[in-house]
């Protein structure tokens, strides 16, 4: 049972990490990007190519991945999202779905469908304590997810840019009126969110092996976790991810394991029924 809880924290931290970038972008720009997983995967692949081609220490390749993620996010915002945003929210989201396919197929075209091992930044060892075991990589993922959640929340709360970013979803027109540069802020949100996604890609790849399909299933869970946490709460995404992981893994100790995914969504369904804004979400008020 204890091991199931630990497994749940480990698995859930992966969802949480992937959800963080998603939630950040969604919170500021109100766009739920289905391409987020592929951006993460693409960044992981870029890091891998750089590592293979230059033989530099892997940490350098990781930094390059994060930069690549940010650049990719900027490119998406500038080239695609900005043009579509005037057509409404639904159109924008569907466009991100299209981007999912474009980026996914680009990855296959560039790097091929091969499955490769990926270096684990937090090492390959198993940490044992109190009768349970967890991999060092998973500990790293939990810690990173936690730190990023706190850092992003603090950034939004206590920096000038963060304040400006928060103003946009609150009152877009008002933000423009008081002189905020919406274009630049929107780009900033996408850059940061995608860079966080890149970080997730690099940390998750060692666990799933690097391949073009690696982010398919995790992204769906990341969305579920984002919804659970409240779609715009960073801490909510972190807590929601861990919570979901634990519930999934504990429940299948008692019921058949193939129901694991179904439990996850069933649980979220119940939570949202009781608390539509999610566990940590903010209720949005519109003045009428």
């Amino acid at each position, binding site marked *: 049972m204890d*091991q*199931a809880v630990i*497994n749940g924290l*480990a*698995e859930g931290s*992966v969802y949480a990490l992937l959800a963080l970038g998603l939630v950040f972008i969604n919170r500021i720009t109100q766009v739920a990007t289905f391409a987020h997983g592929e951006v993460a995967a693409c960044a992981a692949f870029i890091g891998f190519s750089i590592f293979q081609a230059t033989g530099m220490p892997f940490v350098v390749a990781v930094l390059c991945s994060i930069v690549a993620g940010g650049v990719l996010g900027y490119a998406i915002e500038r080239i695609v999202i900005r043009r579509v945003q005037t057509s409404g929210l639904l159109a924008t989201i569907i466009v991100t779905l299209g981007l999912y396919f474009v980026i996914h*197929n680009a990855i*296959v075209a560039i790097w*091929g*469908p*091969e*499955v*490769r*091992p990926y270096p684990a930044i937090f090492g390959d060892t*198993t940490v*044992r304590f109190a009768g349970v*075991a*967890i*991999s060092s990589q998973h500990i790293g993922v939990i810690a990173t997810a936690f730190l990023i959640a706190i850092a992003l929340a603090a950034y939004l709360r206590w920096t000038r840019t963060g304040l400006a970013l928060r103003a946009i979803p609150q009152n877009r027109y008002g933000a423009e009126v008081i002189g905020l540069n919406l274009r630049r802020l929107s780009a900033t949100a996408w850059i940061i969110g995608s860079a966080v996604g890149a970080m997730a890609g690099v940390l998750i790849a060692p*666990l*799933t*092996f690097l*391949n*073009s*399909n*690696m982010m*398919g*299933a*995790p992204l769906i869970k990341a969305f579920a976790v984002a919804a659970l946490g409240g779609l715009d709460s960073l801490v909510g995404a972190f807590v929601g991810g861990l919570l979901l992981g634990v519930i*999934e*893994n504990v429940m*299948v*100790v008692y019921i*058949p*394991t*193939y129901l*694991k*995914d179904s439990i996850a969504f069933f649980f979220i369904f119940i939570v949202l029924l009781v608390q539509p804004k999610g566990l940590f979400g903010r209720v949005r008020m519109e003045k009428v």
Partner: protein
Amino acid sequence: MKQNKKLQSAVAAAALMLGAVQMSGGALAQGVTDKTVKIGAYDALTGPIPLTGKQMNAGWQAALLAINDAGGINGRKLELLVEDDGYEPSRAMAAARKLVDRDQVLLVTGLGTPSTVVAAKYLEQANVPLLFPMGASSTQLNEAGLKQLFMVHPAYLTQAQIIVGWMIDHAGVKKPCLIYQEDPAGEDHLAGAKAAVAARGMQLTAAEAFERGTTDFSAQVLKTKGAGCDMIYTAATLEAAARMVTAADRIGFKPKFAGFTTQADSTLIKLLGPLAEGFYAADILPQPDADDPAVKTFLANLKKSAPDIEPTFFTTYAYAAMMLIGDAIRDAGDNPTRASVVAALEKWNPHNSPLLGPIYFSKTNHDGKRSVYMIQVTDGKWNKVSDWIEPK
């Protein structure tokens, strides 16, 4: 009466033309011309298993190159048309249709159990041979008594039966378990595993399922640990099997692992490194480093055709299968037709494939290979640990 005359001339002209065609020596079958034979394949080049699709295509192309470089089949070059179906049954159906109706191929091959199930039904109705696809759901294919389908890859049910049985008989397994994908292929593996234990008066200690696409197997592995399993049969893709091994290692669980033919691949060792040590698998093809002239020829042809492709299980299988297709067309005679291909195959009793060994077909049996042999990773390499085994 002018119109009548025009009509008469037209009819006469048509009759003359028809006569001319008849006199040219008899029409050749669909897909066959004087210089070429066209065959088709449905493949999963995009979607969930693009690597397998790529490897199958590479194997087919390498064999094609080998056949055509040696002069073709009875003076005709072989031409392969590959349609991508993304591993989706509906697209597989469309692909098969296109190959037959539009491209008019002589016969078809392909990849993927769900795709094959669907394509086989259509090709049966269209009377087009479906030769040696990679996809082995026995309950839906081999047992359906299809006249156009010929298989040389042992069905998953057969494999599971052999592997689980052998592990109990020869590897000291007392608490056999399996982790299987929740789909018809996985169900086949489960049925085979059940048959093996039942034949020995035992029961499966645990059978955990998972949805396709699962990347984290901690839950399944934890359950098998709790049940006390001493062996896990990995009824999943190679990557999934590798993830099961890493998941078990993480929680300090060290059962014997055994996989089927798709895991008999150097990629498993590449992904797992030292963790691969001791992994058992079933195989039907020689390993790429075998001291076997047929293997050396295959490797040379693969290098010529696609120098950057590794000789993996799927590549080797596809190559062997395409060479067999060449043999079938050759045995069908100077003017091969779909019917003569089927008739030729049903006389293979056995026909020897340099890579796959003896293949047995008859009018009532199209399941050409019902045995495998076991290999195991020792010292970082695959080594043979048994002879050919039939299901018991």
